[in-house]
């Protein structure tokens, strides 16, 4: 459950990189961009240069094979700076749905461009208000596919779209389509955290445009992909929570009221201490989920649900408390704390709320 030397070094490099190159002001700059620009392309190409597209990819496919724990550490650092990038959409979801659901030939055909940054991809799965991977309506019928996918991260920026849909046969499938195909409209939607949650609309998309992934176990591959994405998102959230708590503790240690540092007030100390307990608790659950992914453990899904539920609750708490403890400054845009708060609530909906994951955990554990 701890990083090896290589992973530690990578984390340090990445932390420094984000601190220097991706301060929150760079995220804020997106606000002035057209809505279809969901991340800073230059920043992304620097991330590619650092090797971030290949962290979990097996060496056989020219990846670094640093494992999910390694990628989790990187996501944590990204979370500290609230970085908007296709790390989750393309590197985790796109690449891995290909790896998990594609045939070897398909992997070999599409992966290299993803690793090199020449192409980015995303996973189009969700269709309803709340995350629910089990209710897929979009289907191929009579030679065409129509329907709407939401919460498709970075949709308008990517070149390939993996879309979960029912095949003509009724079976679940993953359709690989080029984003510029006729019959596809990918739109951006900038949420309050300035990250994207786009949509993809298929309008009589011709069957011949679709390449169905040909792996042996589509359903299992999809579940694995979602577990991977959920664990990495949870890790990113832990970075966000850690940064928020650190900023708050620093603020309380500097700000004076009633002639003493705010941080000397015992009630505030206890609240910070409790937040720190929640942080390390959730962080441990996240680490365990990542390790389970690395070992392909049997109870991975249960551990992932636990990690996401705890990460949601932890970041919700810490971001709310951080705003409160920053006092008046906490509710101004001048401070970044409001962005942490908003990011938290967005992450709650992404890949499953706490309520969803508690229910899933209970189902997986037989109650």
């Amino acid at each position, binding site marked *: 459950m701890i990083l090896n030397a290589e992973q530690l070094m990578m984390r340090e490099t990445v932390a420094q990189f984000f601190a220097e190159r991706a301060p929150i002001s760079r995220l804020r700059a997106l606000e002035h961009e057209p809505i279809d620009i969901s991340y800073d392309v230059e920043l992304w190409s620097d991330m590619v240069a650092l090797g971030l597209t290949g962290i979990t990819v097996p060496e056989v496919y020219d990846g670094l094979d640093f494992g999910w724990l390694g990628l989790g550490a990187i996501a944590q650092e990204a979370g500290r700076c609230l970085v908007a990038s296709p790390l989750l959409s393309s590197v985790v979801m796109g690449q891995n749905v290909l790896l998990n659901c594609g045939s070897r030939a398909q992997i070999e055909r599409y992966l290299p461009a993803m690793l090199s940054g020449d192409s980015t991809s995303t996973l189009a799965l969700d269709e*309803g*208000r*709340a995350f629910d991977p089990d209710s897929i309506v979009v289907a191929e019928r009579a030679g065409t596919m129509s329907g709407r996918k*939401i*919460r498709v991260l970075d949709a308008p920026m990517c070149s390939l779209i993996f879309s979960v849909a029912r095949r003509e046969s009724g079976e679940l499938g993953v359709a690989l389509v080029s984003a510029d195909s006729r019959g596809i409209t990918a739109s951006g*939607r*900038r*949420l*309050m*955290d300035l990250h994207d*949650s786009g949509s993809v609309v298929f309008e009589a998309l011709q069957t011949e445009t679709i390449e169905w992934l040909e792996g042996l176990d589509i359903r299992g591959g999809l579940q694995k992909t979602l577990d991977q994405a959920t664990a990495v998102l949870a890790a990113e959230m832990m970075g966000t929570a850690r940064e928020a708590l650190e900023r708050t503790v620093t603020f309380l240690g500097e700000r*004076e*009221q*009633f*002639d*003493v540092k705010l941080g*000397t*007030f015992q*009630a*505030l100390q206890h609240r910070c201490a409790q937040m720190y307990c929640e942080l390390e608790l959730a962080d441990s659950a996240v680490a365990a989920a990542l390790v389970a992914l690395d070992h392909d453990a049997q109870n991975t899904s249960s551990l992932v649900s636990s990690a996401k539920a705890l990460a949601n609750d932890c970041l919700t708490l810490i971001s*709310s408390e951080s*705003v*409160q403890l920053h*006092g*008046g400054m*906490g*509710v*101004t*845009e*001048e401070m970044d704390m*409001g*962005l942490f*708060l*908003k990011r938290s*609530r*967005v992450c*709650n*909906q992404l890949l499953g*709320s706490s*309520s969803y994951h*508690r229910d899933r955990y209970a189902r997986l554990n037989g109650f």
Partner: protein
Amino acid sequence: MSQDQLALFRTEVSAWLKTHCPASQRQPIVREEQIWGGRRRVFPSADAKQWFEACRDRGYTAPEWPVEYGGAGLTPEQAKILKQEMARLQCRPPLYCQGLWMLGPALLVYGSEAQKREHLSAICRGEIRWAQGYSEPSAGSDLANLKTKAEDCGDHFLVNGTKIWTTKADEADWIFCLVRTSDASPKQAGISFLLIDMASEGVSTSPIQLISGESEFCQTFFDNVQVPKANLVGELNGGWAVAKELLKHERKMMAAFDGMLEKPAMSLLELAHYAVGVDQDGRLGNSELRSDIAQHLMREQAISQLGERIYWQGKAKQSDPRLPLLMKHLGTTETQTKDELILRALGDEGLSMEDECVPEGLRKMVKQWAFNKALTIAGGTSEVQLNIIAKRALSMPTSEVKS
């Protein structure tokens, strides 16, 4: 006043309201159509202007103030009846103004006759819009520690410093301020209450953008501003008493404010039904959400019941002075609970304040969620409220830390 007289008054008021309040002014208020008065006042419609002027001329913008200062001189019982009838007929409040809610009541107690004559009527008539200058960037909860200085220069004070969280200061005409006039100890003893015309040279404002995207608040700067001595309210260095009088009304106002705010597009229950639907037994589709909503509604209801208890205790002269201390903390916290429930229920639609794909009413709820994070900070943080409750309601011993 006898019950019969009050009943008669109710009939008259109701008739007057029906006659003078146009149908367009008998709908829930929306923020854009609130009338705040002031030198630069504009009316959103002819109906709004007519309704405002009718109220103004009858003294109904300040029903309980004496007639000589522009009020209607009503007794508390009469004022309550007026309020009830306006609520029943859904009449919009004719005027919103901090002068009305806060400064006026304090002036009635502490102002000189000249000050009352100069300012009260201008407030009732919506001619002057007031802002409040209390908080400072380095003195949030610790108000007594304020640094804005008013130097005695013989015939005037010279004011330097800055105030924060001044609501719409950029649209206000005058501001009432707490300023330091002495370095006496305790710090409260060196504070005075000053009225400042914002048109004076050296006053400037800069808006503060909130995380809800709004910028209702400003920071106001005073740079060698000359203020006539006649603008001192109460004693020199006696501003703390005026401030406390005024804060009483701020709390009342915040409690009453609820009714004056724009109503959300849907109630929490409507929203939950809209968002998660019901199961075959008619229960909300998400059982966790259902249980949490029930919990919240019970608590919300209990907060009003606590308010009622306080009201009836007051009527019966059995007031328990501890109870009002609880309202702010309980109320603001519960509002935030509700906001979080709204976000949970909305799911995907609760993640944007700007995206036009989402109905405006829902987006306003998301803005409200963000805006309401200030509720537990403004007007005395929850932490300060808890300090006060421990000390005053529970008489817990004072620690070496003052608050």
